[in-house]
């Protein structure tokens, strides 16, 4: 349930941004979650639903944008889509790859009234 810790981080960042902006109601927030970030999107949605009550995000619309994972081969530099962390390069079959997209856990933006 590390998703709940992340939900609390999201609320904390939103509160800080609201404070920086002076005041106002937060209408919506956008979050980016990589498909190989180690976070289950449904679990994060659930964690947010239960934890926003009584916070600055209670009435906000929350958008979770999944970021599809892409890996780059360290041997032949080929870039390809991956659904897990143990797919070999389709061009040279090497497992020596690194994730270039898909590990994101990011607070993209928020919209204030």
């Amino acid at each position, binding site marked *: 349930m590390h998703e709940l810790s992340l939900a609390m981080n999201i609320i904390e960042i939103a509160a800080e941004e609201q404070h920086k902006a002076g005041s106002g109601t937060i209408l919506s927030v956008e979050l980016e979650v990589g498909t190989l970030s180690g976070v289950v999107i449904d679990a994060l949605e659930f964690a947010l639903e239960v934890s926003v009550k009584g916070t600055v995000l209670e009435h906000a*619309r929350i958008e979770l944008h999944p970021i599809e994972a892409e890996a780059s081969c360290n041997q032949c530099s080929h870039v390809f889509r991956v659904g897990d962390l143990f797919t070999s390069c389709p061009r040279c079959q090497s497992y020596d790859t690194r994730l270039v997209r898909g590990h994101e856990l990011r607070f993209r933006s928020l919209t204030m009234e």
Partner: protein
Amino acid sequence: MCDTCGCGQPDQPASIRKPGNPVSHTHIHEHTHHHGDMEHTHPHEHLHEHPHPHEPGQDPDHAHHFHDANHEHSHGTQIMVGQDLLAKNNLRAERNRGYFEARHITAINLVSSPGSGKTSLLEKTILALQNKISFFIIEGDQQTMLDADRIHQTGAPVIQINTGNGCHLDAMMVNKAVKELDPTDHSLLLIENVGNLVCPSLFDLGESKRVVIMSTTEGEDKPLKYPNMFRTSHLCVINKTDLLPYVDFQTEKARQYALRVNPHLEFIELSVKSGEGLDLWYKWLQVNRS
């Protein structure tokens, strides 16, 4: 579940204790507290309530919308934030790392599923090397002082973090524990994480090396099932090799699976019980000390 941080029951906060000391209930997360009008209720329209798997090839811009309280068209001011959700933990971890580097302390984060033999490995290591190395130990468990009490028997300074219902240690907990433990310069700080191959992988503690331990009584497919942990580790210790004649575990297969996830992973096979391979582990520790 703690409604502030999700780290455990509010009446069972994460606590830090030394063997022999009474319970100190320190809540070791930092929070911004928000107190809204709790009696004020709102109906929430949930636009997506069905399971929503994401396969490669799906539209990457497809977003989940939920918790929509009739703000379908928001015409406000958009503020770009672009902050990593783990930024606070990562920042705290870097602070820990800087402190360790300045004092030539080598910090090692030991992760595994429960029952792989982390604590037994620590006991044996301390007893074998304590004349050469100053050990300081942080034990992470959801409940009990049992592990800290075992380490205490070896004579090494130890502190127990009980996370309550929390599933991992984070950099803040380690920061507080280190302040209490006060490791000396040039010492070796061994941090035994909560037995869990999932959540601890996301939380940098400021360690210099991460060591994942698996044992021959587990399936050799663990690296594929829990890839994040093997991806982020530097060394994989395969423990309980004395049981190999009695179990179906294929060491070579386990290595191959782990190398698919992390081609740079090192391996040491050993048995804490028989002592086989421990010399390789001791050597690794000495070589990787700062």
